[in-house]
């Protein structure tokens, strides 16, 4: 029943997850935290990549990122949910739920209108969060450390465990994203990006596919929010601020829409540059990232992923 290419993709995904888990064993603590951030931010950008494959870009993924984060945080503080995996699911589904009402509206817009509408939605949420004192207003609030499979997570191994959690969750989602990208709807998505009119005349609903992409991206954004929250132990309205959304788009453009793995490479590079610039050249990290993006756009217009996707294309492999 399972198609061969799905098995191949799953095997590749499992292999990469195992590899990342192994690498985690030898990583220093600071790098573990940084990689966890790269993964949990990367999954949000992966959602944008899914949208990009359908020809639209969201400048407001901070909306679902914050929705997932806040929902998880509230579930932890008020409902006593502490299991990390459950929190991830809550984040994903809460964000999806928040995004659902907007999907029919957004799927009618393209280009700058889509981007601006998503941005507007995220900034409305930001405004609400800042003004809501019960949620800590602009300071946000703290969340206690989650548990994993009923076990308390000890301080000394929390970075490592949360890294492992992020690798598995994000790895599974990225594999599913690859399967989706290679699927029937994934291919139609790419055709929509290029020629919406034709797709409609061939009998497929364009807005339906864009809406689906938006929902998938929302789920990923929510999961990213939940993972980030667990690592930071704190949430504030900046999750929904436009600069946060901008960084997600930045990584998506850096990665290009051909490779799912490239998103995490891009996300990792951003985190590395950010933390080193912060350390050695305070307040210049945007400058460094800007230059880096210029170089990528000039020399790799199709993103980091084109470094290895183009070579594999003739063989039919695209992981």
């Amino acid at each position, binding site marked *: 029943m399972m198609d061969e290419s*799905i098995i191949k993709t799953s095997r590749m995904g499992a292999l990469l997850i195992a590899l990342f888990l192994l690498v985690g064993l030898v990583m220093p603590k600071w790098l573990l935290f940084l990689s966890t951030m790269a993964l949990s931010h990367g999954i949000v950008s992966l959602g944008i990549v899914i949208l990009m494959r359908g020809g639209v870009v969201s400048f407001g993924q901070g909306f679902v990122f914050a929705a997932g984060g806040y929902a998880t945080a509230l579930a932890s503080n008020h409902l006593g949910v502490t299991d990390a995996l459950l929190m991830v699911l809550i984040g994903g589904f809460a964000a999806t739920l928040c995004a659902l009402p907007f999907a029919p509206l957004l799927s009618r817009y393209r280009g700058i209108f889509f981007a601006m509408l998503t941005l507007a939605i995220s900034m409305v949420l930001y405004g609400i969060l800042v003004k809501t004192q019960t949620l800590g207003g602009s300071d946000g609030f703290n969340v206690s450390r989650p548990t994993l499979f009923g076990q308390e997570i000890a301080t000394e191994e929390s970075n490592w465990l949360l890294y492992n959690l992020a690798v598995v969750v994000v790895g599974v989602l990225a594999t599913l994203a690859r399967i989706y990208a290679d699927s*029937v709807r994934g291919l*139609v998505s790419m*055709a929509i990006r290029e020629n919406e009119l034709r797709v409609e*005349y061939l*009998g497929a609903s364009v807005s339906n596919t864009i809406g689906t992409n938006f929902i998938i991206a929302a789920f990923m954004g929510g999961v990213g929010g939940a993972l980030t929250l667990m690592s930071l132990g704190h949430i504030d309205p900046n999750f929904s601020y436009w600069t946060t959304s901008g960084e997600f788009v930045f990584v998506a453009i850096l990665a290009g829409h051909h490779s799912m793995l490239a998103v995490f490479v891009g996300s990792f590079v951003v985190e590395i540059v950010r933390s080193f610039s912060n350390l050695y050249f305070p307040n210049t990290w945007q400058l460094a990232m800007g230059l880096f993006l210029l170089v990528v756009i000039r020399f790799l217009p199709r993103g980091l992923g084109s470094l290895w996707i183009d070579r594999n294309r003739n063989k039919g492999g695209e992981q």
Partner: protein
Amino acid sequence: MTNFQVSTVLSARGVHKSFGAVTAAEDINIDILAGQRVSLIGSNGAGKTTFVNMVTGYLKPDAGTIELNGKTIVGLGPRQISALGIARSFQIPQLALEMTALDNMLVAAACNDGPLSVWRPAHSPARIERAEALLEKFDLIAHINRRVAELPGGVRKLLDIAMALTGEPKLLLLDEPTSGVSVDEKFPMMDTISTALSSEVVTVLFVEHDMDIVTNYSDRVIAFYSGRVIADDKPDTVLDNDEVQLYVTGSAKQGHSTC
């Protein structure tokens, strides 16, 4: 043939359409029978494209009915009409340029296969086989793995038609299949299209400006002028019609012109 009753595929009754003061369709009555190869001729602004656009759901007639196999299609969008079995190709090929010819065909197949699966691979052996078979018919198999952006215009036009044919439509509308193609290439191209279409059970309606092509490749011609049908018969009869010669072909006697 034992079946003498030929069914009507498309039936337009009293169709009207105007854009402000301009009447683009006035009391159009057309019945297209199964298996016919019908050309629509007429000068620019005569109402051919308006008719095609109403049949494909891009425009809604102001009055009148259009039925496909007895089911009304007025008020339906291009997507629903396509699902009922009307496919079209475009004067300017509408393709995904950055994708390969095969992927374009697979998109067409996917769109015709009902709900779009979010996990079934687009590149399934069965779909690829189907796409290859159709590309073979259109002599396009050599270009299968090339990006459409690299392909010459004539090849793109054929690919556009092959895509339209993927869903095994009941009625196929070809919008100027040979426009933008050099004179030398027109006939070979029409031969390819004609051969490819002959193996499919499909009724074809095509908009064409080249009267040689019209005479050679259609068994019925409908001439439009100023939103009205001024002639509807066998090619020779229509091209001999005085009104057609005056308004459409622009020739006083012999109807051989390429406008």
